[in-house]
């Protein structure tokens, strides 16, 4: 199932890209972390501090994904 990944700030730096369409086998948000760890193992240490947003809403790791979803990888925010 194809989803569109978007990465920001240090997550983008760690992955080396800002956007990518990826093909996931198990359609849950948690699979995104496995994909990220395959790109850069440092993501393993990071996963607890990263939140995911599907179609611009924060979701938990069990959130089911659907074809075409936009999944944003949100490292600890620091606005303000």
């Amino acid at each position, binding site marked *: 199932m194809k989803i569109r990944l978007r990465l920001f*700030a*240090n997550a983008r730096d760690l992955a080396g890209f800002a956007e990518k369409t990826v093909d996931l086998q198990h359609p849950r948000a948690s699979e995104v972390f496995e994909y990220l760890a395959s790109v850069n193992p*440092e993501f393993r240490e990071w996963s607890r501090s990263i939140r995911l*947003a599907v179609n611009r809403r924060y979701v938990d790791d069990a959130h089911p994904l659907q074809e075409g979803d936009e999944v*944003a990888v949100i490292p600890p*925010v620091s*606005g*303000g």
Partner: protein
Amino acid sequence: MTALTLNPIDIGAVVSGLTSPESGGIDVFIGTTRNQSRGREVLLLEYEAFEPMALEVMENLERRAMERWPLHKIAIVHRLGRVPVGEASVVIGVSAGHRKEAFEACRFLIDVLKQDVPIWKREHFADGTMEWSGSIQQSKVNVNRV
């Protein structure tokens, strides 16, 4: 009213937009770039956002504040890009009939903005390095300055 902007924030204009004939009090919080962070000299902060989501989360915060306090108007304006020392990165303003609600809601909005709005700042230090702020892995993601 929520906005993201690459330009300096016109605080007087934000306040004008908050006034209403019913309002007795307006509280405005302004976050500004400090010249140091964790003991290191800072030249500027550079903000980036997941813009559409940031705006949606900011609008959601406004709705939550409006449900919780009897407020008249709210403004949340965040600057993106490079913000030099002394300039405002964020301006949050709330108008209400009385000051108590204005203070409480303004404090709530900046506290929750800092937790939930997908905006990130990168600190540019005087020693030429830069670092994303707010991360538990701060030391790992040093990048050389371009």
